[in-house]
C-alpha cells in the first residue's frame, strides 16, 4: 500500500498538494474501504457463524431463515438495531456514555493497520508492529471502563471494573508470549516476522521449538481473555452481572460493542496466524503477482478464521472462571509459563542461532499426534453416546 502510494506520488499525481494531507487522505480512504468492505461484513458473518456453530454444538439449528442458511441474519439484526430507539438513561453521564462504544471500536479497528493480509496487502508495515498492536488494543479497556462508569448502574460498574483488571493483567502474558516470537524472528515488523517463516508447517514459529509451541496456546488464551470471550467473559457475565458494562446500552451503540467483539475475534486469529502460523506464506506455485496476492489473502484468511472457529468452539464448551481465579490463572500460571517460554527461546537461540530443523520437524509430528488423539476422542464420543432415540425424528 505504502509502495503504491509512494509510486503515485513519484509519478506526480498529487503535484503541489501537501504530502501530509495526501497521506492522511489516503489513510482515511483505506480505513473506509477496509471498514465497509471487509470489517463490517466480516464481523457480521462471524456473528452469524458463531450462532450457527454454537447451535450445532448444542443440537440446535441456529438462525437459518434470513437468506440462504441464514447468512444474512447479521444484516437483519444490524438494521433492526439501527432502527431501535437509542436510549440514554437520565442518570447517565451522557457524553461518556455516547462516546464509549466508539472508543472500544476504535481500539479494535486500529489494529487492522498492521495486519498483513498478503505480501503487498498491508496498510502500513510499521517496524514496531507488535508494539503498536499491544499499545492500541489497550484503548479498548478505556472504552469499557467509560461504558461501565457512565451507565450509572451498579452491574455496569462491576463489569467495567472487572474488565479493567482483566485486560490489564492479561496484557502481560500476551505480550510475553509475543516476545518469544520477536526473539525468534529478530524483528517487530509483522511482514518481517512472516518472511522469517516458511510456507511449510515445520517452518512455522509454532513448531520452532517446544517453548514457542506453548507460547502459542498462552497467547491464544490471553487473547481470549483480552477479548472478553468465554471462559473469560466475566465483564459481561450474563448470569452474574445481567449484561455487565453493556446493560444500559441499546440500539446501535449496543451493536458497536459486539461489532468490536466479533471483529476482535478475527484480529486475534490474524495475529496468531502472523506470528505463529506462517501468515500469508504460500508454496511457490505461481509467479503472477495478482494471483499470488489472491492466494496469499485466501491462505491468510483461512488460517485466521480457523482460530475464530476455535474461539467459538471454546465458547461453546467451557464454563466461566471466577474473578479471583481469573487473576490467579494469569499471575500464578500464565505469567510464569510465559517467562519460561521467553527464557527457553532465548537459550534455544544461543544454542542454535539458526533454529534446529530436526526439532521443528519433531514438534510438527507432536502437533499431528495431538490432532490424531483428538480425532480419536471425538470418534469415541460419537460411538459412545449417539442420540439414537428421536421420538420425533425429523428436523
Amino acid at each position, binding site marked *: 500500500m505504502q509502495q503504491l502510494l509512494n509510486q503515485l506520488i513519484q509519478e506526480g499525481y498529487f503535484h503541489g498538494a501537501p504530502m501530509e494531507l495526501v497521506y492522511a487522505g489516503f489513510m482515511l480512504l483505506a480505513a473506509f474501504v477496509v471498514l465497509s468492505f471487509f470489517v463490517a461484513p466480516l464481523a457480521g458473518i462471524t456473528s452469524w457463524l458463531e450462532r450457527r456453530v454454537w447451535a*450445532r454444538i*448444542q443440537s*440446535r*439449528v441456529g438462525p437459518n431463515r434470513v437468506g440462504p442458511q441464514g447468512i444474512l441474519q447479521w444484516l437483519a439484526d444490524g438494521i433492526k438495531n439501527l432502527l431501535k430507539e437509542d436510549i440514554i438513561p437520565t442518570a447517565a453521564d451522557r457524553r461518556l456514555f455516547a462516546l464509549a462504544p466508539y472508543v472500544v471500536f476504535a481500539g479494535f479497528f486500529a489494529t487492522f493497520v498492521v495486519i498483513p493480509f498478503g505480501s503487498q496487502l498491508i496498510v502500513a508495515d510499521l517496524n514496531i508492529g507488535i508494539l503498536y498492536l499491544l499499545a492500541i488494543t489497550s484503548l479498548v479497556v478505556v472504552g469499557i471502563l467509560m461504558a461501565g462508569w457512565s451507565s450509572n448502574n451498579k452491574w455496569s460498574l462491576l463489569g467495567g471494573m472487572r474488565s479493567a483488571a482483566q485486560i490489564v493483567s492479561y496484557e502481560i502474558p500476551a505480550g510475553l508470549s509475543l516476545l518469544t516470537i520477536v526473539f525468534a524472528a529478530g524483528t517487530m515488523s509483522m511482514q518481517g516476522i512472516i518472511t522469517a517463516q516458511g510456507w511449510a508447517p515445520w517452518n512455522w514459529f509454532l513448531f520452532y521449538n517446544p517453548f514457542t509451541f506453548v507460547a502459542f496456546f498462552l497467547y491464544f488464551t490471553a487473547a481470549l481473555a483480552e477479548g472478553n470471550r468465554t471462559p473469560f467473559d466475566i465483564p459481561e457475565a450474563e448470569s452474574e452481572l445481567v449484561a455487565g458494562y453493556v446493560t444500559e446500552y441499546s440500539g446501535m451503540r449496543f451493536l458497536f460493542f459486539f461489532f468490536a467483539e466479533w471483529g476482535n475475534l478475527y484480529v486475534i486469529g490474524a495475529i496468531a496466524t502472523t506470528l505463529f502460523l506462517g501468515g500469508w506464506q504460500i508454496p511457490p506455485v505461481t509467479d503472477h503477482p495478482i494471483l499470488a496476492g489472491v492466494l496469499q489473502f485466501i491462505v491468510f484468511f483461512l488460517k485466521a478464521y480457523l482460530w475464530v472457529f476455535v474461539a467459538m468452539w471454546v465458547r461453546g464448551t*467451557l464454563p466461566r472462571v471466577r474473578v479471583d481465579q481469573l487473576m490467579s490463572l494469569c499471575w500464578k500460571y500464565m505469567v510464569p509459563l510465559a517467562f519460561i517460554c521467553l527464557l527457553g527461546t532465548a537459550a534455544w537461540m544461543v544454542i542454535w542461532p539458526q533454529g534446529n530443523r530436526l526439532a521443528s520437524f519433531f514438534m510438527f509430528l507432536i502437533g499431528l499426534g495431538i490432532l490424531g488423539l483428538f480425532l480419536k*476422542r471425538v470418534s469415541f464420543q460419537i460411538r459412545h453416546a449417539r*442420540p439414537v432415540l428421536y421420538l*420425533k425424528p*425429523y428436523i
Partner: protein
Amino acid sequence: MSAVGEYVRDITETVTTVFEGMAVTFSHLVRRPMTIQYPDRIPKPVQETLPLRYRGILEVDMDICTGCLACERVCPISCITIGIETSKETKQRTFTHFDIDICKCMYCGLCAEACPTGSIRHSQEFEGACYNPAGLVRHFVTEPVPLYKPKKGGETDPTLAEKVETGLKYLDEFASPEKGGGAGTEEG
C-alpha cells in the same frame, strides 16, 4: 515439593479436561440437531404427531351430549357453563348454551373422564392464539339443540352411531387399554 506437584497437576488436569470437553462438543458438530422447526418446516403438522392422550383444547360433540352436567360439576375452575331449557308444551329439553372458556381451562382432563358418552374430549389442537380474549370462549351451541338420549339396545341412526362409537373409543383409549383401569371405574 507437594506444592510443585499440585501446581503441575492443576495444569495437566485443566488441559486434559478441557481437551475432553472440546472433543465432546466437536462430536456434536457432526451429529444431527434435535430442533423441530415448528411451525412451517416440518413434514406434517405437530398436531398429527401428538399421542392420542394429548390434552389439547376441549371440543364437544353436541350430537351425543346427554346434558348430564357431569363435566360442569367436576370442573375445578368452572370454565364450562351449560344452559338447559325445558319447553313448557313438549317437555323437550334443549341446550341454550354450552360455553367453554379456554382462557380459564387448565387442561386437567377431569371433564373428559367424567363424560359418560365421550362427547366432551380433548383434541390434539393447541394453537389458540387470538387478538381478543373473548374469542377464546368456545360456543358449542349456536341455536337451541335437543339433548341426546341414549337408546336402549344401541344407536340406530348410522351417523349418530358413528359418533357414539368415536366417543366410546375415545373414552377407552384415554383411560386404559386394559379393562379395569382408568376413569371408567371411578364412577362409585
